[in-house]
């Protein structure tokens, strides 16, 4: 049962481990610890609920508890943005051109990856969890152990940051003609 329910999510959990650790060996260790812990406590999982979210919760707990590096403090940038959320509105951000064009623009994968990497890690995490891992906001709140409101705010701000970064790329491409 565990193999049928949990192991199909192995790649997704490994991807999350890689994003957390930025190191293949650490990611493998983290993945294995996570899966074995999940196997050991599989009786605590409620069948029919989102197993990927459950595994990612274990992964993030493992990472927070067992990470050998100094536990990362909330980056100043994240604090700044969280404070800005109280005062700065996104409504004045310029539009990004035709939305369909966004996808068809063929922004180079490397450029987009750079844009994604430019986000503070806590903002990048929520974006990946909602758009790639396809978790809902409550599941993300559980995985990251943050309030639901913070998830909403960070998703909104992360996309706003992506928009601004992509606008800069588009403007520079326009200037150089590339």
């Amino acid at each position, binding site marked *: 049962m565990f193999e049928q329910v949990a*192991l199909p999510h192995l790649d997704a959990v490994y991807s999350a481990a890689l994003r957390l650790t930025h190191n293949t*060996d650490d990611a493998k260790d983290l993945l294995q610890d996570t899966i074995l812990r999940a196997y050991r406590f599989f009786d605590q999982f409620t069948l029919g609920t989102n197993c990927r979210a459950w595994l990612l919760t274990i992964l993030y707990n493992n990472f927070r508890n067992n990470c050998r590096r100094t536990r990362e403090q909330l980056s100043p940038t994240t604090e700044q943005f969280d404070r800005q959320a109280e005062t700065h509105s996104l409504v004045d951000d310029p539009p990004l051109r035709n939305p369909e064009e966004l996808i068809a623009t063929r922004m180079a994968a490397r450029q987009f*990856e750079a844009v994604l990497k430019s986000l503070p890690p806590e903002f990048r995490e929520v*974006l990946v969890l909602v758009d790639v891992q396809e978790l809902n906001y409550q599941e993300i709140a559980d995985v990251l152990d943050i309030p639901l409101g913070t998830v909403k705010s960070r998703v*909104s701000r992360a996309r706003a940051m992506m928009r601004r970064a992509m606008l800069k790329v588009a403007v520079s491409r326009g200037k150089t003609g590339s």
Partner: protein
Amino acid sequence: MAGRFLAQWVRRKRYFLLATAMDCREYVDKLVSAHADGALTPRERRLAESHLGTCPACRTRLAEERSLKVLVRQHANIVKVPAEVRLRIRAAIGEMADPSFIGRNSTPHTQDSSPRFLWPARQTRVWAPIAAAAALLLFLAVYSGRSGTPGPAAQFHPVPVFDLAIAKYDSLARDFVPNVPSDRNGSDFAWVMDREGARPDAGMREDIERSYSEANMPDDLFNFEPAGYRLGGGRLDHLADGRPVTYTLYRGRGDAILDIDLKDPQMSAPMGAVYWIGMRSFYQYKDYSFCLTFSQPGHFVSITLTRAPLTELIRDVAMADALTTGDER
């Protein structure tokens, strides 16, 4: 009556005003991302949709949010777990499922306990293979250093069955059609398969195994997925002398593995094998790597070949065998 009509009109107008009271700032700052993610409460959704009904700019903004979601998903890919890691996890789960596991670890199972005896010290990050795997690794390390020339018998003596297998490999690896009758005037063994491979592998695998079983042919397919090969399909044919034969193709890593199963009680292993695992013997013949397997029940012979290096075939077969052993627990 006029008063009641007026009161109703005022209520409707008030509701309308409240619904559209949400301005663009509120929608963009508070709702648009959640709207794109399907995370609005029913009340928020009513307010949002009412606002969008009169605001093309916010409709565009919502479309942009959705496009950004697509872009993130397109570019932030899921990374596949390395095959050896997947294999080790399965092996470890298999160990934990073994009832005798309970007696091995004398410490009680706590929240933070883990099967330490399975894992090396974190500092070393060296995986301790089982004895057979250690021998395999040693062989691969030694064999990889060789020039790759085949063994003396395979090099100097033709092996007709290998030549036939090579001809079939060249043909089927180029153009494998699993869903057609036998070459010989139709077959009784047509089965439903998805030619494009869109069906999940598990379903395809079961279909092939069932069809093979119904034809009294070996139905234990290799699982080469950890090695990066996906099941491409199965085919049931007949040899020139009428004997049934199965062809199972696996594709991946820019290459293909063909597994041919037939009944041949007379066949014996050719000279020149360079490695053995149980009933399997491995050969380098011309530019192809071979694995020959004899199964006593039914006197079937399995010929597995690929153009990939022999060391890879040995490793991939060993991994597939280990998975089968784990699944059977």
